[in-house]
């Protein structure tokens, strides 16, 4: 029977120093990528359009990365740079995509919101709030149909949890026991509207209980908790027992997109979350496990150089030629577009 279990920092699993180091490295890579993308947008103005940053939410992607197999499919919404990097899209391909360059992971056709990588089973990158909740169930259905034991991780925000799609997809995912893990990244705000202002039901995990879906709240500032919850859900799905819903509580340090001064929340609230910053917490853990501060600083410098290189690469890359307008609309090579 579905029930709530509050996962805390005191996880049952013991993680190795190598795992903490992997988490630290990935979280710092995502953090640096996002901070630098912000700078390029605001200062150099070389990134245009929407840019939804995930700074503060990195522990979710780190925990997903370590708890999953490469053949597991991931699909998410438009706040997705961190998810994509954790799945394996390179900083160069990701940054070039933000620049709209031909060397981006989707040739400059998707931009910030629409990263895809079929070889990594990274299914996007979707801009219609909640649309991917059903798509994720469909990817899981395809895997189940073809007898694979991979699982689909389907992410969405607290805003998307209020879409009707959630209920339709949850109902069918449970009825058909689809191997999908639903992850609500609850960062407290649907754009500028707080969770409290969008529903009478403020504990989002409870929305799964109406379908008897195993549903849990997870501390999203903590990769250990995220890893443990996802590993358990993945095993459940691989055993043919169907979906799990994880409400992962997190916080985005930046605004919704680039034009958002975040006036709807307090500085105290931001401070409280930054005091439990996942990179800082994991760094302290690594030091307690005997890592040298100088080694971590060197790793930071290495990642800083990697991200600087990605910006340089993006900057120097070509824009897509105008002829690309007519490619990738149809698989049919000779599709007769209306040209007049």
């Amino acid at each position, binding site marked *: 029977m579905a029930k709530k279990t509050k996962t805390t920092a005191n996880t049952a699993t013991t993680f190795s120093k190598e795992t903490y180091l992997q988490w630290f490295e990935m979280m710092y890579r995502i953090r640096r990528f996002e901070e630098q993308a912000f700078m390029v947008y605001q200062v150099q103005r070389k990134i245009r359009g929407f840019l939804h940053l995930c700074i503060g939410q990195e522990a979710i992607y780190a925990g997903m990365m370590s708890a999953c197999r490469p053949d597991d*499919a991931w*699909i998410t919404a438009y706040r997705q740079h961190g998810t994509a990097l954790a799945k394996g899209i390179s900083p160069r391909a990701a940054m070039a995509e933000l620049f709209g360059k031909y060397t981006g*992971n*989707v*040739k400059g*056709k*998707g931009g910030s919101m*629409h990263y*895809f*990588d*079929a*070889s990594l089973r990274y*299914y*996007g*990158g*979707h*801009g*219609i709030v909640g*649309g991917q*909740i*059903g*798509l*994720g*169930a*469909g*990817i*899981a*259905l*395809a*895997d189940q*149909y*073809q007898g694979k034991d991979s699982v689909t991780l389907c992410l969405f925000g607290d805003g998307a949890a209020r879409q*009707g*799609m959630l*209920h*339709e*997809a949850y*109902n*069918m995912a449970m*009825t058909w026991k689809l191997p999908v893990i639903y992850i609500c990244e609850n960062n407290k705000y649907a754009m500028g509207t707080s969770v409290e202002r969008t529903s009478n039901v403020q504990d989002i995990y409870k929305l799964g209980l109406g379908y008897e879906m195993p549903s849990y709240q997870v501390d999203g500032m903590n990769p250990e908790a995220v890893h443990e919850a996802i590993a358990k859900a993945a095993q459940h799905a691989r055993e043919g027992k169907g979906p799990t819903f994880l409400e992962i509580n997190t916080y985005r340090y930046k605004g919704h997109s680039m034009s958002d001064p975040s006036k709807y929340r307090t500085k105290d609230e931001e401070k409280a979350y930054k005091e439990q910053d996942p990179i800082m917490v994991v760094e302290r853990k690594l030091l307690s496990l005997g890592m040298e501060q100088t080694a971590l600083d060197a790793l930071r410098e290495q990642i800083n150089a990697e991200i600087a290189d990605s910006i340089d690469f993006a900057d120097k890359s070509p824009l897509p030629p105008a002829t690309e307008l007519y*490619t*990738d*609309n*149809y*698989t*049919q090579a000779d*599709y*007769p*577009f209306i040209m*007049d």
Partner: protein
Amino acid sequence: MSRKIRLREALREAMSEEMRRDPNVLIMGEEVALYNGAYKVSQGMLEEFGAKRVIDTPIAELGFTAIGVGAATAGLRPIIEFMTWNFAVLAFDQIVNHAAKIYSMSAGQINCPIVFRGPTGAAGQLGQQHSQTFESWMANVPGLKVVSTVNPYDAKGLLKTAIRDNDPVCFMESEVCYSDEGEVPTDEYLIPLGVADVKRQGTDVTLVSFNKMVKVCLSAADELAKMGISAEVVDLRSIRPLDHETVIKSVKKTNRLVVVDESWPFAGVSAEVCYRVQKYAFDYLDAPITRVNGADTSVPFSSTLVDAWMPNPEKVIKAVKAVMYR
């Protein structure tokens, strides 16, 4: 060899043959399995293919369409049956924002081979919410293909092609034509998308149409023949891509055109046909193009109002007389 079968049987044969051919083809929708289809199109398919491949869904068009689209991006070839395209409106987000765009958003990495099918158009006294056509809505969207037909031969050949197509295809039928009979070969055949068909040869005027309005045009052509007017009837069959070359060729022969389209007139298929004909056959026209559409209103219930709303042979004959200056 051929034999007469009904439209619903032609559609069923297309789906069943493709499901036998490719294990990744499946059908899902409301009442498709145990109930044997709301209009019996999928009758017997559950028995042959089992519940894994003939899937009854809850009444949740948005959700089951999304699951179909997601499955299509991950290696399956789903057929999504809508009990009527009117209900597909609930799923337009998935068709328009997702299925149509995933290939472009992923820069060609992930395609979406899926067929969305079901009846469209007014079907008697069904009221405002069950009487709409959707060809022009869907055909407006790059990334989608649109087929609309009620001819059993065309329906079978086109649906088989649609199922094999690697792009998303919207396939539109008509619930009042599922019992229509037509000659259908026993041997396998395919009909390419984007190719119109001349259903009746003529010399004086071209009637361009699709779906059940082709029947209206053929009836009108019979009456016109008695008046000494020879009408050519072009069945578009595919709406996107649209085969305007067959239309242009006919207009260059007849010099007069009436477009008969059950859809509302505003920015619809008839408007697109008119644009292309004035563009490519301007000097061949002996009269302004005329069109016969459903009225620019919702479709009410009462029979007199439905009759007033619908295109019919009398309205087509009147339009033909106008372009013939008779």
